[in-house]
């Protein structure tokens, strides 16, 4: 058999194998065990120490392209915050769909709890301006967002009295794609001292390790793995959350199920890389003879 031919295998075969590997765990979930890592546990522990007197800002800085990784993360974090009865201030700084992601995720999770809008949580909506918005919120959040996502004035909302500016914010969580998460870490944390946590796609996780090591971020949730670890911590401690994730539609969309897909696809890609290199060395040896 000509080994060199194997190097030029029809790419449709590779596509087919990847598709089969991705589909199988969706049809028949495997339920591979997830072990939480330190950067994820740091956020979970921080939220566990908070209560109704704390206000947390959750910034939706991603769009539909990052949904599969960041939606499960957003849901797990929002569930945890609401379970702890923490005041949640939601905003969006990503122009291509951040506002829509915030709306849909928040609307989905708030239905599970007995919450009052404007008292327990608020959705401030999208604001253009990135770093200028971040800087301005150090003085007054309500000044930057005079109305919420539906055009209601924010000044009279009780939650805004508890979250006037960064000095009232116990933690800022940015669910980010692109550079916005970095701005929270390199501008808001060093200048205003707000603890920052970033949940990002796996592909952008490496750059955040520099901020994590420098102490500009208190925790990091990287991609689907980070989301599944957070889900695991939450499910272990809260029976009510376990029940939610046992519902078929939730189970299918959870990061834990996603990890099964990621596991198989990663193994397929690694197998192809190893196989390709074995053939590469074998053909090189043949060539040198």
């Amino acid at each position, binding site marked *: 058999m000509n080994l060199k031919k194997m190097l030029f295998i029809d790419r449709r075969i590779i596509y087919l194998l990847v598709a089969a590997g991705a589909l199988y765990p969706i049809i028949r979930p495997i339920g591979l065990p997830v072990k939480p890592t330190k950067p994820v546990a740091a956020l979970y522990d921080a939220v566990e120490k908070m209560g109704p007197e704390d206000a947390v800002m959750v910034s939706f800085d991603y769009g539909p392209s990052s949904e599969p990784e960041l939606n499960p993360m957003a849901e797990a974090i929002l569930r945890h915050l609401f379970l702890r009865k923490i005041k949640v201030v939601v905003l969006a700084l990503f122009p291509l769909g951040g506002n829509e992601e915030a709306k849909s995720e928040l609307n989905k999770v708030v239905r599970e709890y007995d919450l009052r809008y404007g008292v327990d949580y608020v959705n401030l909506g999208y604001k253009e301006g990135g770093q200028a918005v971040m800087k301005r919120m150090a003085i007054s959040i309500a000044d930057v967002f005079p109305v919420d996502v539906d055009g209601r004035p924010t000044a009279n909302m009780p939650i805004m009295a508890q979250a006037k500016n960064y000095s009232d914010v116990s933690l800022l969580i940015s669910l980010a794609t692109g550079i916005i998460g970095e701005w929270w870490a390199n501008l808001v944390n060093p200048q205003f001292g707000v603890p920052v946590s970033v949940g990002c796609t796996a592909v952008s996780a490496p750059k955040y390790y520099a901020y994590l090591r420098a102490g500009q971020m208190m925790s990091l949730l990287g991609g689907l793995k980070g989301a599944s670890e957070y889900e695991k911590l939450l499910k272990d401690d809260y029976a009510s959350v376990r029940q939610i994730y046992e519902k078929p539609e939730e189970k299918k969309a959870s990061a834990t199920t996603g990890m099964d897909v990621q596991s198989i696809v990663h193994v397929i890609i690694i197998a192809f890389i190893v196989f*390709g290199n074995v053939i590469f060395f074998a053909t090189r040896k043949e060539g040198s003879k």
Partner: protein
Amino acid sequence: MKRTVPLVLTFIIGMYPIFAFFVPHRVVSNLNDRLDTWLIIVAAFALPLGAVNVFMINFSKISQRRKGWPYSIVILAGLVVMGSIGIAGAYRQDSIGQFQYLFQNIVSPLQSTMFSLLSFYVASAAYRAFRARNLDAGILLVSAIVVMMGRIPFGDMLSRGSMTPLSEWLMTIPNTAAQRGIIIGAALGAASMSIRIILGIERTYLGSGKD
């Protein structure tokens, strides 16, 4: 005059936040806060400017029947439909639901599909191009495999729990060292570019200079 006024304005507006950073007096910082507010307003105006730009480029492409012009029709149709429903939503509460509906059922699946195609291309490209041709490429290859295995529970099952710590070490130590170099380099680049713009050395933002 046409170039001098923008250059002077850029110098003043660019220098003021630096001055305010070192002089934290109330009067100075009040004006600086106002500049931040103006920046938010100016940034908001950049959005319609971008939309006009997209409209002009694609309209000329269609009128001149340049290569790929039918795609421009799709872009413009999307811009007009989503834009008009979104703007209408600012005035009529019921349109917000329509915008959200279109977003969730068209924009979101389209973007998710584009992103998920990556896994197929990555698998194919990795098989064809990821070779341990020399020592550097070999180190990169081994690191990539360790990180990929460390990102999945399967890796820990195979290695009795050692893959995640190894992958975390790679991300925390060698990766952080490289990332710091990139971040510091990019920051120095941004700072030097800002100084060039403030001092009027870099003038490309003023346009071609033709009247």
